[in-house]
């Protein structure tokens, strides 16, 4: 039973979504942020809302982690299913949906790499041609290293001196790769800062200016490249560490 005494069947999530600008319950226009000001019912977060907006942050890459956490806790309290146990099924379902989205948004933005991957997905529409060509040199290098690793794994019955030499080589290789990883991360964080500077310049001047688009695409493209190569490197470093440790 609802407050006005009528029996209502719970609404499907899709119906709830469509009624975003209008309260799903009392059909009045929504002025409040998460609750209808007329009937005080909780409102579903729009599926189209990006995670930055969801957590009240500008679309930047260097973010205030304290502010992120504070907003996350605040919204968690607002939407937590525990507080909706005595409400209608529709409200329970909204509370569940909102909490799930909130958790994903928080997890994604908290981690700098996931944050950057997410931003790239968001911006992929505006900055075309973000796809980069596969790093052929890196592939060759990884294949060679993997072959060395295989040789080492099957060399245990050979003479100890040869095994030790192979092991030393792989350890040196790993150290060099780790150095490259650190260099990549340093470059990545430089790009974070460049993106943020571009972004704040954009809000002051004309966002559609060709100059901005060109600069933004260049930054995003390099970021895409580093993030991809980073994954390949991480895998081979993990394999090296696991085998030679």
């Amino acid at each position, binding site marked *: 039973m609802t407050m006005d005494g009528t029996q209502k069947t719970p609404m499907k999530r899709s119906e709830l979504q469509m009624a975003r600008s209008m309260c799903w319950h009392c059909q009045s226009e929504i002025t409040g942020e998460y609750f209808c000001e007329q009937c005080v019912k909780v409102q579903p977060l729009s599926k189209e809302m990006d995670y930055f907006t969801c957590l009240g942050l500008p679309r930047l890459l260097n973010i205030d982690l304290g502010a992120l956490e504070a907003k996350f806790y605040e919204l968690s309290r607002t939407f937590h299913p525990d507080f909706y146990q005595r409400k209608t099924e529709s409200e329970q379902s909204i509370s569940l949906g909102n909490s799930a989205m909130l958790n994903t948004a928080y997890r994604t933005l908290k981690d700098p790499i996931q944050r950057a991957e997410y931003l790239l997905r968001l911006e992929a529409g505006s900055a075309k041609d973000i796809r980069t060509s596969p*790093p052929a040199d890196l*592939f*060759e290098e*990884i294949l060679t290293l993997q072959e060395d690793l295989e040789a080492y794994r099957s060399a245990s019955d050979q003479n100890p001196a040869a095994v030790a030499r192979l092991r030393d080589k792989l350890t040196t290789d790993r150290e060099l790769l780790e150095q490259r990883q650190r260099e990549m991360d340093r470059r990545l964080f430089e790009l974070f800062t460049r993106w943020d500077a571009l972004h704040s310049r954009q809000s002051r001047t004309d966002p559609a200016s060709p100059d901005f688009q060109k600069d933004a695409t260049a930054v995003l493209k390099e970021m895409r490249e580093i993030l991809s*190569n980073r*994954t390949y490197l991480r*895998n081979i470093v993990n*394999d090296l560490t696991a085998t030679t440790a």
Partner: protein
Amino acid sequence: MAYSDKVVDHFNNPRNMGSFKKDEDDVGTGIVGAPECGDVMKLQIKVQDETIVDAKFKTFGCGSAIASSSLATEWLKGKTLEEAQKIKNTDIVQELNLPPVKIHCSVLAEDAIKAALNDYKKKAEEKK
């Protein structure tokens, strides 16, 4: 999520693992990677009179990626270049019963086939 029996079989008994010499005229090599998971796949074909007489692969990645490339080499053997071009990732998905999260492994195998074919064709063009 469990791997299908076919994936496990290809993973435990990979067919045609290994490599040919890259710089030989009758060999086409495709090396591709999936930036999402960091898998790297090398697939090679040996061609005589427009027909693939042998194929080999080396894949460093998950079970599905290994199974996809192993299956691809099995299918490639005996096919003409034109027939090989028609192998689709969806054929691999079907044969191996890959779940949605592993579809990119079959895409990787298709990309590797295309890359190997292109590499061979480029070499053949240059020889003319």
